[in-house]
C-alpha cells in the first residue's frame, strides 16, 4: 500500500474513534428481475464518514444494490435505513427529500446534453428548490448560480461553465457530474463505477479528485469499481458481492489484491 493512500485513511480512522453512527443499514435486502434473484438477502452497514468500496463480477448485483438504496429500483424484501430514515416507509415527498441529500454519480455521466455545464450543475439544487428557477442557469437565483460556480471550481472546471456538456471530454463530463452531486450538498454519496468509462490517466485523476472532495467534507461514500487498485487505495472498507450475496466484508488495509482474484473466478 502506498504512503499516500495510508495518509488518506487518517481522517476516517479518527472519525471511527467517535461513537459510530450508521448512515446506511440494509438488512435482508432482496430483489428479483426478469425471474432471476439479483439480490439475495444483502446485509450492509456503512458508518458515517466511511468510504466503502463494493466489488464483484459483472452481474453480481452491485448496480442493483446501489439503485435499491434510493429506491430507483424497488427492493422486494428487507429493511433499509439511510441517513436515519426508514427508506421503505417513505412516501413520494419524503423520498424526494432523502434523494436530495444523497449524491449519485453514474458510470455514464448522465448529464443533460444540449445544456451548459453550469445549468447541469444547477440541476443539483432541484429538491431544495423546485420550479423553473433551477431549470436553467439564465433563470437561476444569483446565490444558486454562485454556489454552482463554486462547485465547478472545486472540480476545476470554471472555464467550461458556459459550454454545452456534449462538447466536453469524458473526464470533464464526469467532473461536471461530480459537481452536480456536490451542488446537492450531499450527506452521502453513491457512485456506480464513476470512472469506468474514462481512460486510465483521466480515471486516476478523476477518482483522486472525487475521493479527495468526499474526504474533505467527511461525506460518507459508497462506490463500486472493477479497478481493484481503486477499491483498495481509496476505501476504508471493502465489500464483495457475488451472485446477490455478500461474500466478503473487511477493512481495506487487511486485504491485498491477490486475496480478491478469487471473487472473479
Amino acid at each position: 500500500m502506498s504512503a499516500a493512500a495510508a495518509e488518506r485513511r487518517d481522517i476516517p480512522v479518527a472519525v471511527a474513534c467517535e461513537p459510530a453512527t450508521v448512515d446506511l443499514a440494509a438488512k435482508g435486502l432482496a430483489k428479483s428481475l426478469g425471474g432471476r434473484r439479483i439480490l439475495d438477502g444483502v446485509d450492509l452497514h456503512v458508518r458515517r464518514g466511511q468510504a466503502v468500496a463494493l466489488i464483484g463480477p459483472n452481474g453480481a448485483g452491485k448496480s442493483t444494490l446501489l439503485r435499491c438504496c434510493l429506491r430507483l429500483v424497488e427492493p422486494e424484501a428487507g429493511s433499509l435505513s439511510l441517513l436515519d430514515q426508514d427508506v421503505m416507509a417513505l412516501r413520494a415527498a419524503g423520498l424526494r427529500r432523502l434523494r436530495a441529500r444523497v449524491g449519485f454519480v453514474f458510470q455514464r455521466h448522465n448529464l443533460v446534453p444540449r445544456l451548459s455545464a453550469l445549468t447541469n450543475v444547477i440541476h443539483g439544487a432541484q429538491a431544495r428548490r423546485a420550479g423553473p428557477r433551477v431549470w436553467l442557469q439564465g433563470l437561476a437565483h444569483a446565490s444558486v448560480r454562485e454556489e454552482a460556480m463554486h462547485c465547478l471550481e472545486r472540480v476545476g472546471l470554471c472555464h467550461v461553465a458556459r459550454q454545452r456538456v456534449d462538447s466536453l471530454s469524458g473526464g470533464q463530463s464526469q467532473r461536471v457530474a461530480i459537481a452536480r452531486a456536490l451542488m446537492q450538498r450531499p450527506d452521502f454519496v453513491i457512485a456506480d463505477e464513476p470512472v469506468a468509462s474514462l481512460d486510465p490517466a483521466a480515471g486516476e485523476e478523476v477518482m483522486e479528485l472525487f475521493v479527495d472532495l468526499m474526504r474533505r467534507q467527511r461525506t460518507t461514500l459508497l462506490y463500486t469499481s472493477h479497478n481493484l487498485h481503486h477499491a483498495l487505495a481509496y476505501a476504508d472498507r471493502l465489500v464483495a458481492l457475488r451472485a446477490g450475496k455478500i461474500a466478503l466484508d473487511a477493512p481495506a488495509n487487511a486485504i491485498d489484491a491477490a486475496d480478491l482474484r478469487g471473487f472473479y473466478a
Partner: protein
Amino acid sequence: MSTVAPAAPTVPRHPAPPRFERPGPGAFAAAVAALAVLAAAIDGVGLSLTHLVEGIPSIGRILERMWPLDLSRLPFIGQALLETFQMALVGTVLGVALSVPLAIAATRSHSPHPLVYLAARGLISVFRTVPDLVWALLFVVAVGLGPFAGTLAIMVDAVGFCGRFFAEAMEEADKGPQEALRALGAGRLGIVFCAVVPASLPSFVNTALFNLEKATRSSVVLGLVGAGGIGIELKVAMDLFSYDLAATIILAVFLLVVLVEQGSALIRRRLM
C-alpha cells in the same frame, strides 16, 4: 511485398440458410386477399385509360388559355397570399404551444395519471384524424368567414400532428439523464423540463417547421370553404373560366410554398 499469405478459403461447417423462406399458408392467403382488395379498388375508382387520353386535349385548352398571365390583380393576390402565410404561421405557433403540455400528458412515462394519459391520447387522435377541411367548416360556422376560422383549423390540425410526434420524441428521449434527475430528488415537472424537453428539442423544432410547411399548403385549400387566404380567389377565377388569373394565383402559391420550405430548411440548418 507482403509475406503474409492470403487465408485459404475454407468450407464453412454450417451451410448458409436458404435465401428466401417459403411462404406459409397464412402468408399466402394474406397475399391473395391483398391482391383481391387492390383489384376491387381499381374497379371501384373507374380507372380508365381512354377517359384519360380523351381528357388530354381539354387540359391542353386550359393551359393555352392560361397564357399570357393576368397580372392586373397582382397587388390583391399578394395581399391574399400574405394572409395565407399569416394563417399558417399563427396557427402553427398556437398549435405548437398547445401541443407541448398535451404531448407531455400523452406520454406513458410522464403523464400525471393513466386517465389523463388516455384523455390526452384520445384528444390528439381526434384532432389528427378529422381532416383540417372539416375543422375549417366547423370554425366558419362558429366564428364566421375569414382568416380567423382558417387559423383555428390550422391550430387544431397542428395539435393533432405535433402532439403525436412530440409525445413520441419524448418517449424516446435518453433515460440516463432522467434517472440522474430522479436520483437527486427532482419532481415530475423538473424531470420533464430539465431532461426530457431539452433532449427532444431538435425533434420539436423539426416537427414544428414541417408543420408550418404543411399548414402553408393546406391554408390554400382552406380558402375554398371561406376560411380566409388565397384559396377563395383561385376558386372564383376557375369558376369564371379566368384561367389566366388562375395561373397567376397558382404560380404565386407555388412561390410561397417554395419560399416557406426553403426558409424552414435554412432555420433547420442553423439550429441543428
